[in-house]
């Protein structure tokens, strides 16, 4: 299938719900081992009793980039089988995510855009916690493309 044909097969308004993710000390350790980010924010209960500027936290927090990785997975789980190429992700963290919290990314295909040379998909991203509160939001872009850049 060409990029154009793949582009024509997806519909604006499609809502993609990612897999729910529950934070534990084990998931934090696994993410640290994968990312090499061993900041004490994610491990040290005593350290987290400190104030950080005007901010204080109720215990250790999940890595912000764990959220980024879960959003990426939600996008690529949907894109790869459809031949889509992940191009961009922008995120803002709104609330810290703590032990025992369950977060779920939801991505909406907000619009499709044909440019001079590309077939683009524009997504809105929201991540909510178990109480339905937004913990992160952002947007993403993907492209249907006939040849992946750099392919030899």
């Amino acid at each position, binding site marked *: 299938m060409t990029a154009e044909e793949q582009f024509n097969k997806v519909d604006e308004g499609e809502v993609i719900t990612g897999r729910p*993710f529950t934070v534990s000390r084990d998931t934090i350790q*696994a*993410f*640290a*081992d*994968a*990312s*090499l*980010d*061993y*900041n*004490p*924010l994610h491990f040290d209960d005593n*350290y987290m009793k*400190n104030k*950080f*500027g*005007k*901010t204080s936290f109720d215990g250790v927090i999940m*890595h*912000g*980039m*764990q959220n*980024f*990785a*879960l959003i*990426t*997975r939600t996008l*690529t*789980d949907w894109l*790869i089988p459809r*031949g889509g*190429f*992940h*191009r*961009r*992700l*922008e*995120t*803002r*963290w709104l609330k810290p995510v703590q032990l025992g919290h369950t977060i779920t990314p939801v991505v909406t295909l907000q619009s499709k855009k044909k440019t001079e040379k590309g077939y683009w998909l524009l997504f809105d991203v929201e991540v909510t916690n178990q109480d339905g509160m937004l913990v992160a939001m*952002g947007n993403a872009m993907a492209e249907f*493309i006939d040849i*992946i*850049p*750099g*392919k030899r």
Partner: protein
Amino acid sequence: MTILDLDNFETDFWKDVDKRATWDQIIPGELRDTTPVTLTKEVIARFAKGVGEDNPLYFDEEYAKTTIYGGIIAPPSIHILLMFACTTTEDWMRSPGTINAGQNWSYHVPIRPGDTITMRGTALDRFIRKDRLFAVHENSFTNQHGEIVCTGRGQTIRPA
């Protein structure tokens, strides 16, 4: 070339804390000290597993050959690992209390097993808002062919 060794990484982020630039010492535009690293198929598979990426595109060569990618690639989010893999223990992104406020990343050439990746990183800007110390960082990663892999901008709140 240095093959990324995940098992001998310094996990104590308090080590060298006094050698790292604080917010006051960060000079916008100054390059961070970085080292290129080579990513093996095993490193890519381990990263994918660690972040819960179970698409076989990231570890199964037979499957990956049937896709538009033509072979195994790394998950796009692997820059999360490269940020620490390419920098030193004296890099200020390791400072305890560094709080991530948001990120945007743009992806171009996928990373493949055997690629050697070079990071170029700076703090583009720094500012104080609502009593918090912010740094804006810009990073780009290139492969051994000089092709852009991905570029990103992020904001962190710096420890006071």
